[in-house]
């Protein structure tokens, strides 16, 4: 049921696109902060490639939003107040160390894969086309992150200790990925997406539990209740700092062409 003229349809589609776009832009931005700082030169090249994919995907979603009457993509990316951002908290956190960045990416990529697959038959065709293309790229991100996770987990010593700490630090943010801020029923009703948030989380847990086992890592148990929901515009100081940096040049002359 694609009724783009239905007000509510447009509304939830737009909301959902913001969630996806903002997730991607922030994750890509965080990835790019690793430039020149990865543990080896090869890792640097790989992380940068992933960062570009993420920002590319975000750009695609912002363009869809613009086609639906929202602001210019650059203004959405560089000129929006933190309270308007709809990303989950997980992606706005600072990078911390290698294990944190890898595990955060892994958790998000697994979620993203499930979310994208649930949109392969989305009633909004432009989204459906883009999603199919993105799934092909995301396959490699997920492969990359899973490989790292297993290796860090099996290595023992410092690497595994740090990995354990990273998992614990990330755990309270996991639930936030599965929040759709109240539009989930409408997304299903309009067939924009095929799974409920709970179904997505069950799939995520199954995938991750298998991986944890292969990596010799123990499962931390239940996900804590969300304290702040990024999808509702509730964000940390880290996002504000990031947005100040990201918008610094753009904001210096917002009407100029750069």
């Amino acid at each position, binding site marked *: 049921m694609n009724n783009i003229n239905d007000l509510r349809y447009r509304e939830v589609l737009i909301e959902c696109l913001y969630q996806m776009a903002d997730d991607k832009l922030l994750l890509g*931005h965080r990835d790019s902060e690793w430039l*020149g700082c990865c*543990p080896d030169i090869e890792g640097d090249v790989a992380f940068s490639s992933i960062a570009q994919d993420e920002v590319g995907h975000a750009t695609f979603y912002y363009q869809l939003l613009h086609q639906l009457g929202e602001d210019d993509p650059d203004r959405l990316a560089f000129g929006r107040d933190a309270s308007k951002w709809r990303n989950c908290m997980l992606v706005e956190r600072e990078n911390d160390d290698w294990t944190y960045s890898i595990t955060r990416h892994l958790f998000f990529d697994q979620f993203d894969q499930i979310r994208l697959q649930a949109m392969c038959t989305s009633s909004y065709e432009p989204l459906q086309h883009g999603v199919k293309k993105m799934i092909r790229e995301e396959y490699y991100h997920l492969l990359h992150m899973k490989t790292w996770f297993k290796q860090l987990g099996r290595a023992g010593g410092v690497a595994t200790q740090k990995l354990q700490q990273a998992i614990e630090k990330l755990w309270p943010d996991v639930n936030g990925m599965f929040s759709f801020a109240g539009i989930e029923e409408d997304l299903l009703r309009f067939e924009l997406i095929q799974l409920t948030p709970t179904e997505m989380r069950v799939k995520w847990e199954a995938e991750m539990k298998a991986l944890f086992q292969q990596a010799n890592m123990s499962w931390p148990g239940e996900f804590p209740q969300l304290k702040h929901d990024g999808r509702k515009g509730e964000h940390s100081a880290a996002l504000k700092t990031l947005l100040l940096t990201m918008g610094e040049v753009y904001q210096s002359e917002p009407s100029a062409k750069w």
Partner: protein
Amino acid sequence: MTEEKQYASFMERIRAGEKIEATDWMPIEYRKLLIKLIHMHAVSEIMGAYPEKEWVPRAPSLRRKLAIMAKVQDEMGHGQLLLRVVEDLSAPLGRTREELVSDIYHGKVKFHNVFHMEARTWADAGVIGWLVDGAAIINQASLLETSYGPYARVLKRICAEESFHMQHGENIILALAMGTDAQRQSLQTALDYWWESLLFFFGPQEVTPAAKQMMHYQIRLKTNEELRQKFLDKYVPRIQSLGLTIPDLSLRYDDSQKKWRYQAPDWHKFSQIVTQNKGPKSEERMLLRKKAHEDQQWVREAMRNHNISISSAL
């Protein structure tokens, strides 16, 4: 075959324009000169990522953000390809990748003067892409004919990518040049700041003994001054056509000599920057490299000790 004969037949190959390969016999002097040149080139690519790294998070549009991310990735990629070439050359001398990287912050390998300088504004990031990469292309294109095969092949790819970088930089510059007063002013300020560094980039006017030996072995074929003149030929008209002022009142083309006359850069100041790492950003960037390398040794160790096959990851 005696060493003398080996040397004679090696030089015969060089003169005939043949490419030398990694596994071929080569005089130790040739090997050492190659290591010196290519190691510095590799490290310059890697350290060259830092000035722009500071502007990647601040790129003012989605398009620019993607472009500058891709550009800096290319630089790291060039560094990686070149390090592989140096690794092969250094293996018989018992040197490893770990040392080739740690040499940077132990001050055992130099990198280009421009990467010791500050990138203070977005216009600086544009000028780096346009003129620093422009200068680098002139330098690298002149090495395409180098006698060492692996270096020549890597350079071919590097030059192709660098020409995109130059266009990326030129595109940023054009937007600024056609932009608001403040944008034009920041562009002029950037040019004023970088000009002297750009002239120094090609190295001293006199042909040093090492450079002479590199030319003897046809590792490189042009002098520093020839390359600097090429740069001026290409860029002086372009810079002027944008309405920018080159901060050198004495700059002129001498028709009788068929060369540019210019105010020489402060050779002493810049050679201190390169040899003593005394540039405004040398220390900070070397520290970044040190932190990346030393503080994360545990990551590389974790990778080495516990290889798993990628196919079992999914």
